[in-house]
């Protein structure tokens, strides 16, 4: 009998440690803060990541539609989550535990901070803590964009402040769209500080063949962003959706055949009517 109790006690401690026990971040990581400002751009970026990586378990924040599992993933807009520091959240996303994956393997620092920015956007009272930048080395990244039309590749060169190539920079390239940016790819610079991105030559640019290319680069605490109009594809000419003369065009652009038919029947018939009306007073002259 006592043995049985021990087993139960043992199992309980197991479960306790598995999910009932509070998940704590190491003290040294608790006070970590983002050095980037949580602006709309970073929130949107985080939103996209959230939809792809987090939503399947946590649901949409404020919607309480997280999946039913143990331990409960919980709604990320709840006080339980929002009362934690940015550093705690960062640690938990990075390190993972149990069913929560270790996202540090898949996402870089900036991406994890953007996720936090997104989650914080559901907290009205949140104020982003100011980072302590003393002693922090922020690499100054300069980006140089060019296009190699032999292989249809966008070439991104990353340089440090002295103009020397900077290797190991994470680079993402996008094409700017009206509602969002299309990700061309994500890559890491080689030792010469160069990253390549394929551009589909069939992709339409503007009427001169230009595309707005956005390149974002980050290394450590340093980041850079460049938006550049580049000639990368063949010029296309856009047809207005209302070009030509159709039955559905505005009245000024009615088809010619219709105008001719309409006016000629109108003139023919009303001409005859007017001829009769004008002729009727002749009756009096005949008397």
């Amino acid at each position: 009998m006592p043995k049985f109790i021990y087993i139960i006690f043992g199992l309980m401690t197991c479960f306790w440690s598995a999910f009932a026990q509070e998940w704590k971040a190491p003290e040294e990581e608790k006070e970590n803060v983002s050095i980037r400002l949580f602006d709309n751009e970073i929130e949107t970026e985080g939103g996209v990541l959230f939809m792809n990586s987090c939503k399947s378990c946590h649901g949409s924040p404020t919607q309480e539609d997280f999946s039913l599992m143990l331990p409960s993933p919980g709604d990320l807009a709840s006080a339980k989550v929002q009362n934690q520091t940015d550093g705690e959240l960062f640690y938990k996303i990075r390190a993972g535990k149990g069913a929560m994956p270790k996202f540090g393997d898949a996402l870089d620092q900036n991406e994890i901070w953007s996720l936090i920015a997104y989650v914080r956007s559901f907290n009205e009272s949140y104020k982003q803590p100011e980072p302590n930048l003393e002693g922090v080395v922020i690499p100054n990244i300069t980006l140089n964009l060019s296009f190699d039309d032999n292989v249809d590749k966008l070439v991104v060169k990353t340089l440090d402040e002295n103009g020397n190539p900077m290797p190991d920079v994470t680079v993402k390239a996008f094409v700017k769209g009206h509602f969002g940016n299309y990700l061309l790819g994500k890559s890491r610079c080689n030792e010469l500080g160069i990253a390549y991105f394929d551009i589909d030559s069939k992709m339409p640019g503007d009427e001169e063949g230009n595309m707005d290319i956005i390149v974002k680069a980050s290394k450590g605490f340093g980041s850079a962003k460049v938006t550049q109009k580049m000639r990368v594809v063949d010029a296309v000419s856009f047809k207005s959706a209302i070009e030509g003369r159709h039955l559905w065009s505005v009245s000024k652009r009615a088809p010619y055949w219709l105008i001719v038919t309409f006016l000629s029947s109108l003139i023919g018939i009303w001409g005859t009517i007017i001829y009769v009306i004008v002729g009727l007073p002749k009756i009096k002259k005949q008397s």
Partner: protein
Amino acid sequence: MMDSAEKSFKKVERDLLASVNWGVKSKVWMGFLLLLLVVCLFYYVKQLRNGLGVTGLNDIVSWGVYISNFVFFVAASLIGMLISSVLGLIGFKWITPILRIAEIIAVSFAMVAGLIIITDMGRPERLLNVFIFGRIQSPIIWDIVVVMTYVVISLLLLYVPLIPDIALCKDKKKGVPAFQRWIYKVLSLGFTYKPNQFKLVEKYIRILAVLIIPVALAIHTVTSWLFAMTLRAGWDTSIFGPYFVSGAFVAGCAAVIIAMYFFRKSYNLQDYITDSHFNKMGKLLVMVALIYVYFNINELLVAAYKLKSGEAEHLQSILWGHGSPMFWLVQIGGLVIPFVLLIIPKMRKPLPSLIISIVILVAAWYKRYVIVIPVQEHPFLPVQNVPDYYSHYTPTLPEIAITIAPFILVLIIMTVLSKVFPVVSVWEAKESSVEEQNR
């Protein structure tokens, strides 16, 4: 010989001008009509104030009895063209006494049809937009133009043959109110029975008779295009033009027979509108009904044979679904049986042909209802997330009253015209009496 001709002229004049007065009976009749009209107008004011929401219309069935009534009125007005123009140009003499009745029907129904369209508008105060921003690609613009043209030509076709009679009224009807005398004076255009003047009148009648044929065909074809130009299953068919035109002649013939009966009875015109006229109109009705039956078979059989996905649902509903009782009543009871009965000579006597014509006319009204409404109850995509009654349209009381108003208006116009002018052409009646004596 000369003496008897003189005598018969006198009789003709006396008989036909007798109705041109305002007796007690006609005043009571007009008062009754005006009272009814006021009641209906009350409902129209209500609609103006509260919007089309007072009707049974909704987002699914957005065209209801106003539109089917409009189609009916346009249809009835078409008969003026068939009788006064087609039959006249071919050279039938028997139509002379009923010409003016047919023209009065054409004018009054066409004029009122234009008003019905206004009652169907959500924003009647923006009517002028049609002239300011009119798009000639829209069948509505074609319809408005062609209805206006038809009203003008029909008015002329009523007026020009009236000129000699107006001159006659001016000379003989001294007892009428001053205003009416002034109208006679202006409208008679100084007509003095000169042969040259008759020639001129006859020339203009011929021009107008020819001109009205394409316009009349256009008015009803364009009306059918309001439906046929859409993509809705059940309307999307190329037969709608001739189908509507042939149907219009059926309704119009019935309307003329009914009008003939009542004018003959209340104005004592037995010597002019004879049993033979009813007989011939009955035969004409049989002929146009046959053509209409032929188009009905074409319209229904071709679609029912193939049962294309969209049309199948609509046909199922009107052939054996919830709309079927009305459909078969209209087709069999209101078209086939009446025209078969009219083949029997006895049924072409005045009273039986009146009863049959009333049945046909009522059925013709419902036929327009069956064409306009059930198609909308079965759109391509399911009707969901709207109140249940959306796919079962029922007209409301205000809507019915506003639908009745045009009929009252037509009766008022017909009464006024027949009280101010002789309803049978006096000069043409004289002509034919001369011809008869010469024979």
